[in-house]
Every structure is written in structure tokens, then in C-alpha cells.
């Protein structure tokens, strides 16, 4: 017996999953570069959010056409993958359609039949996605941040899916034994006649080739994820779990600031007191974020989860009125910078070596940050619970509290609040004058 195909298959499988595991490790390491944040609260609400938003696609369908097509591709992706299990067993043990010898023919036929229907539906949906993106040119896919890699990435994913679905159907269509059962070949029976003129050996070769390319394609696609926006198919689940559970309007109160404010307000504190003997000298906290390491790990997870659909940007009042701010770009920049930091660490034995760059300025400009109205439209629009607003606020905090770099008018506003308790320069003692006017 010839074991070469089995061995090759095992090698491909190990290489595929091995490289994927390595990338997952890098991914987790990079996400953990973020600041710790407590997400142990509201467990049941979090599970509910994940079930409803990620598993149930509740926010995707807010836009009915894209939502419906996405559900088709999503369901197809999950269910057709059952077939991959059979392919892996067949590949490793040199069997052919092993489930056919385990399951009754009718059930096997029903399964494969469903896969075939889903495969053709996925193919059609993905084709429509491609048309929306490239022919109809839906605006949100053509914003300024959607050039070069982001633009190509989106199309590569669509081509991958088209080819994988086509290979699956061709593989079934050229499987003479499977076709002869005439059960489950709902779609492939119409493709089969395309090959009818060919000699049986050629058909066999086509079947084997389709089979191999299909499984190798899946392995390549799996490893493509880490480099692509398509990572959302995995990260949407943890991201919706760890997503915000508080009211959208509630911004976090910086604990480091609370400590200092409490101290300022406490009349018993001696401002000149020397630190207690043996007390650890605390590194003064940095207020806000100028680089990815200052963000929380959930915000970094957000960045890796973003699939660049642009629903956030298409609802952003600043972007809609021609300002530079695009919430999607905030997420893309955060991921790009995080990747850069990660690569820097890889090249320096796991230590980050200052590269003279940071997220603020080199990726995200102050102009973008100051254009935000904090309206939460982007947060509401995101189908996978990403919170671009929280990153914008953290970076504003850095600009204001570390660099005193707020726009002049805002500095005036803040001085007014400090002096007379209102953003306008009115006397606090006049606060009730309206009553008598």
C-alpha cells in the first residue's frame, strides 16, 4: 500500500495547525500588552451579548441586505466545516468518504445535500458581496483608509471563499461513486455533466485535485486569518463577551485620578510628607494613552476583531460632514501599530525597543481625535461590540492631561469651569438669576 498521500496529508495538517497555533500565541501576547481591566462582572449579561450579537448576528441584520447575505455565509461556513472532519479522517487514514460507511446512505445524502445547497448559496452571496464592493462601489468600502492592503484583503477573502466553494462542488461532481448513489448530489449533479466527455482517469484526477486543493485551501485560509481583517470570525465571540455592558454614555472614571483628587480634597493629607519607610516608589501613572500599550487589552482585542466593514464610519457625524475622523481608521491604526510593536518585540528577543514612534501622531492625529462628538453612533453601529470612542477618549486624556494640548477654545472652557463652575465665563453667584429675569 502506498502511504505517501497519508504522510503528505499529515504533514500539511501539522504544518497548517502548527503555524496557526504559533500565530495565535503571538496574537494573545500582543493583546496582553494592553493594560489590565476587570471584566469579571455581569457574567450572564456577557454570555447573553455573545449569544445574541455574535452567534445570533443580531446587529448584522440591522442592514437587511448585507445582514442576510452575511448570515448565509456564516451559517454555510460553520455547517460546511462538518465536511472538513470527514476530509481529515479520509486524508489521514486513506479512506474515502468514511461517513458513508458509518451513516445510513439517506442521512449521509441529506448532510452532503445540505452542504451543497449552502455551498452554492455562499458562492452566490460572496459574489454579491464582491459586486457591492467593486462594481456598485458602496461608499463605506471606498473611504480613504480603504486603499492598498485593506482593499485587497477584502477581495482576497471573497476570492478564497468562491474558490473553496467551487472546489467543494467540483469534488463532489467528479466523484463517480458519489454521483452514482444519486443521493445528496443536489447541486453537483448539474455540474457533473460538464466533465462527462472526459476519460474516467481524468475525472479521477480532477476529483483528487479538487479534494486536495479544497483541504489545502482551508489550511491556507486558516493561516491567512492572523494577517487579515477576517480574524473576526474567531474574535467576534470573545469581543462581544468582553464588550461594554454599561450604558453607552458612561465613560470610565480614571482610578489614578480619583486617588489624586481624594488626596487633594483630604485636609488631613500632608502634601510634603516623605514616602513611608520601605514603601515602594510608585511610578507615576501616565494619564490617558499615547501608544497601544496604554490602552486596555479589551481595546486591543477590539482592534484585532475589527473587520473593517465601515458601518461605524458611515454613521459617524464627523465623517459624514467631511472631517478626517473615521472610527474604523482608529481601529485599523491601533491594530497596525500593535502589529508593529509586536514585530519590534519579535526582533528584539521579546523586549520592545523604542522605535521613536507611537499611536498618537504617527498613526492617529489630534485633528481626528478632536472631531469626535462622543455621540456613540460608531459604538451602536458596530456588529461585534467594538468601542472606538473609548480609544478616542483615552487619547484625548493624554493630549489634555499629559501635554496640555487641547484646542485653545477648550482650554478657555476648562478655565471657566475651574474658576466659576460653568463652561461659560459667568459668575457662579449669578447662577439662579434666571428665576427673576
Amino acid at each position: 500500500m502506498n502511504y505517501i498521500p497519508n504522510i503528505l496529508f499529515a504533514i500539511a495538517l501539522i504544518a497548517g495547525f502548527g503555524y496557526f497555533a504559533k500565530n495565535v500565541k503571538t496574537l494573545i501576547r500582543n493583546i496582553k500588552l494592553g493594560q489590565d481591566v476587570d471584566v469579571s462582572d455581569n457574567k450572564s449579561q456577557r454570555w447573553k451579548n455573545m449569544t445574541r450579537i455574535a452567534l445570533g448576528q443580531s446587529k448584522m441584520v440591522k442592514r437587511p441586505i448585507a445582514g442576510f447575505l452575511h448570515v448565509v455565509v456564516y451559517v454555510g461556513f460553520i455547517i460546511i466545516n462538518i465536511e472538513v472532519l470527514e476530509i481529515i479522517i479520509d486524508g489521514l487514514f486513506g479512506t474515502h468518504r468514511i461517513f458513508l460507511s458509518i451513516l445510513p446512505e439517506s442521512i449521509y445524502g441529506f448532510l452532503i445535500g445540505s452542504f451543497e445547497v449552502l455551498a452554492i448559496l455562499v458562492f452566490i452571496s460572496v459574489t454579491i458581496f464582491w459586486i457591492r464592493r467593486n462594481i456598485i462601489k458602496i461608499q463605506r468600502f471606498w473611504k480613504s483608509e480603504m486603499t492598498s492592503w485593506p482593499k485587497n484583503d477584502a477581495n482576497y477573502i471573497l476570492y478564497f471563499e468562491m474558490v473553496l466553494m467551487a472546489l467543494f462542488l467540483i469534488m463532489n461532481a467528479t466523484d463517480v461513486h458519489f454521483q452514482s448513489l444519486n443521493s445528496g448530489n443536489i447541486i453537483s449533479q448539474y455540474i457533473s455533466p460538464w466533465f462527462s466527455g472526459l476519460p474516467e482517469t481524468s475525472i479521477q484526477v480532477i476529483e483528487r485535485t479538487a479534494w486536495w486543493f479544497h483541504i489545502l485551501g482551508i489550511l491556507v485560509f486558516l493561516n491567512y486569518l492572523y494577517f487579515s481583517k477576517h480574524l473576526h470570525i474567531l474574535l467576534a465571540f470573545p469581543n462581544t463577551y468582553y464588550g461594554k455592558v454599561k450604558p453607552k454614555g458612561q465613560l470610565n472614571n480614571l482610578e489614578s485620578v480619583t486617588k489624586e483628587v481624594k488626596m487633594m480634597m483630604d485636609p488631613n493629607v500632608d502634601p510634603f510628607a516623605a514616602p513611608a519607610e520601605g514603601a515602594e516608589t510608585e511610578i507615576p501613572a501616565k494619564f490617558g494613552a499615547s501608544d497601544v500599550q496604554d490602552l486596555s487589552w479589551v481595546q486591543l482585542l477590539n482592534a484585532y476583531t475589527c473587520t473593517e466593514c465601515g458601518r461605524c464610519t458611515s454613521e459617524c457625524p464627523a465623517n459624514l460632514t467631511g472631517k478626517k475622523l473615521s472610527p474604523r481608521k482608529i481601529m485599523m491604526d491601533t491594530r497596525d501599530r500593535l502589529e508593529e510593536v509586536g514585530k519590534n518585540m519579535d526582533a528584539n528577543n521579546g523586549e520592545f525597543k523604542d522605535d521613536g514612534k507611537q499611536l498618537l501622531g504617527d498613526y492617529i492625529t489630534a485633528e481626528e481625535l478632536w472631531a469626535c462628538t462622543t455621540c456613540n453612533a460608531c459604538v451602536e453601529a458596530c456588529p461585534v461590540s467594538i468601542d472606538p470612542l473609548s480609544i478616542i477618549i483615552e487619547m484625548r486624556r493624554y493630549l489634555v492631561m499629559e501635554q496640555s494640548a487641547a484646542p485653545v477654545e477648550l482650554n478657555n472652557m476648562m478655565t471657566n469651569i475651574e474658576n466659576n463652575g460653568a463652561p461659560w465665563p459667568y459668575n457662579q453667584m449669578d447662577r439662579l438669576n434666571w428665576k427673576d429675569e
Partner: protein
Amino acid sequence: MGFSVANLKIKAYNNMSEQLKVPTMAQCMAEGRQPDILFWVGAAGSYDDRAKKITKAFVKILNKANVDFAVLGTEESSTGDVAKRAGNEFLFQMQAVTNIEVLNAYEVKRIVTACPHSFNTLKNEYPELGGQYQVQHHTEFINELIKSGKLSIGSSSQFTGKRITFHDPCYLGRANDVYEAPRELLKTLGVELVEMKRNRNSALCCGAGGAQMFKEPEKGDKDINVLRTEDALETKPNIIATGCPYCNTMMTDGVKAKEKEDSIKVLDIAELIANSQE
């Protein structure tokens, strides 16, 4: 139909001060009593000429319904919302801690405010810093007054049958999921409520939030309030209703920019209710 805002009788409540009863917390304390409600006026409601009218309209409603309320008056200070959203967490927390000290000294339990920004900050961001209160937006509170029979609205008012569209303030709607209270109030008035294409959780911001009210917008091709006003104009309204002093300013400016101020009025829900009383 020859509608003109000139025909609307929107009282400015000028020279009516003798009719408005506005006790302060300090007065209540001196009299040894604890009012049920603290009305948090907010900086806009205290100082901005347009917003002051909203404040007075709401006080008229409170008086009419015999609500036992008080204001902090000169003891009130900015909640710190704008400072926080501008990135000045220090200033925000200083404001919060100072306000919380005052509120807790008066043992305040319930707060009502006509400003969604104060509403959001008091409700969501003060508890962690030691300020735990039951906080309501004035549209929620007025709705309760009507439902419990403490406030009644005549079967028809000058607004009956008027086309009114409601602009959702971000800090009331998306931020805190209050969408229906203002709409229920408009329905109580018997108006023809028309929705903009972007409404409720997909409503477009007026452009004032996140401290934008206090600065020039960044370079772009349009002002946000003009875009939002265009949303409103598409519904061909007689009145644009809202529930936020900042939104009110932005939409009023937007209507002016579109030169529609003679045919469309921007009013707060409290003003609509107050002007529907006989």
C-alpha cells in the same frame, strides 16, 4: 395651510418671576424640610438665554403639578461632563467630588434634570465616586406626572395636529436608551409625530456633544447641525422638538442656516407641555 410660527404662543415667561416658585435646597434646609426632588438646572439651563426659557417652562410644569422640589442655585456647579469628554479627567473628578459633597450634605435622593449631559453624568459616572441618586430626565419625569394624574393636558392645545419631529439627544437616546418618554409626551399632545429617517438609536448627533459646543469644528465640508437639520426638514415639520439645551441651540442655528426660522420652530418638550396648559 398657512402655518407660521408667529401664530404659536410660546410664552417666554418674562416678567412672570412672581409666578414661578423656585425654592433652593438651602432655603428648604433652613425651614427644616426635605424636598422630594432636586431639579438639577445645569450650566446651560442657568446661563444660556435660550436654555433659560426651557428651565422656566419646566419649573412652570413642576409648579403646576405641585411637585415638592428645590434647586441648588448658587451651590450648583458644572457636572464636569464637558471637561471629561474633552479629556480633562482631573477637572471632571474635582467637579464631581465637590458636587457630590453638596448633594450628599443635603441628603438628595432623587434628581431631575432637563439636560441629558447632566443626566448621563449624574446617573452613570457619579455613583463610583460616591454619589448615588435616582436620576431622571425631565421627559421621563413629566411622563410620570401625566401617567399618575398629577399633571393633566387639555384635550386639545395649540399644538394639536401640528407636524412635529423629535430629534433624539445622543446622551438621552443611545447613551441611556431613553427613546419613548419624549415620544409618548408628544403623542399626549395629539401632535402628528413624524420620524426622521435617522431616529432613535440611529439618530444623527446635533454636533454639540463631546465638548464640540465650545469649539470650532474641524475642517470638513459641512456643519453637523446643518446635516441634522436637513434630516429634520425632510419630514416637513412645523416644529422640531428636542430634549436637550445643546441640541436646541444646534438645531435652532441649523434652521437659521436653512433660512426656515419663519416657518419652523425648535422647542423643548418641556416648552410644548408648558404651553399646552390652559
